[in-house]
């Protein structure tokens, strides 16, 4: 029963080691939480892919349902849901996030 939007999300999460659903884009984030998340991933320095949910309203609703998570941004690493801004920030502070990224990029 996967609709088109859900299939698109599944593909994005599968095809990108780091996939981020955010408001705005990496250069011009449209929300403080998305901006903070971008800072962290710029710092990490590995390639990541983003979708601007403000320009894709259907995807904004779909990703919330898909992740069972009511807020944006949402971060997927290695095909797995990691969380939103708070969790990413916490994991960056402890070094868990960097490890997750290294693991994702070293697996095939």
């Amino acid at each position: 029963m996967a609709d088109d939007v859900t299939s698109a999300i599944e593909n994005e999460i599968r095809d990108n080691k780091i996939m981020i659903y955010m408001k705005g884009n990496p250069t011009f984030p449209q929300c403080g939480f998305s901006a903070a998340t971008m800072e962290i991933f710029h710092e990490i320095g590995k390639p990541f892919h983003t979708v601007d949910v403000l320009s894709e309203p259907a995807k904004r609703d779909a990703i919330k349902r898909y992740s069972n998570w009511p807020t944006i941004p949402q971060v997927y690493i290695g095909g797995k849901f990691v969380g939103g801004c708070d969790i990413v920030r916490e994991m960056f502070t402890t070094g868990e996030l960097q490890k997750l990224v290294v693991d994702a990029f070293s697996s095939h």
Partner: protein
Amino acid sequence: MAEGKTPVEATREARLRERVRHGLAAEHVELADESGRHVGHPGAAGGAGYYHVVVVSPRFVGLDRVARHRLVYEAVGDLIPDEVHALAISAYAPDEWRARKA
């Protein structure tokens, strides 16, 4: 409630606090209104609140971060997104909280 808050804001905060406390059998809840940091943001223009909540609950024991945050979101329920535009969450099990304070 804190001075300078409108009745709507005060009620919203009280409900948010109560839902978190009750829904998670929380031992401790701290709520900070961070709407001031988001002035001019499209979401803030609608008057919806930006909050940071610190929750200490025995329900978090043994759960990872995602599961903890999902429980908080569940407890907050339909206050998101109309009344609560964004919620930063710090979720601790009681022993983690005590270790942090020590």
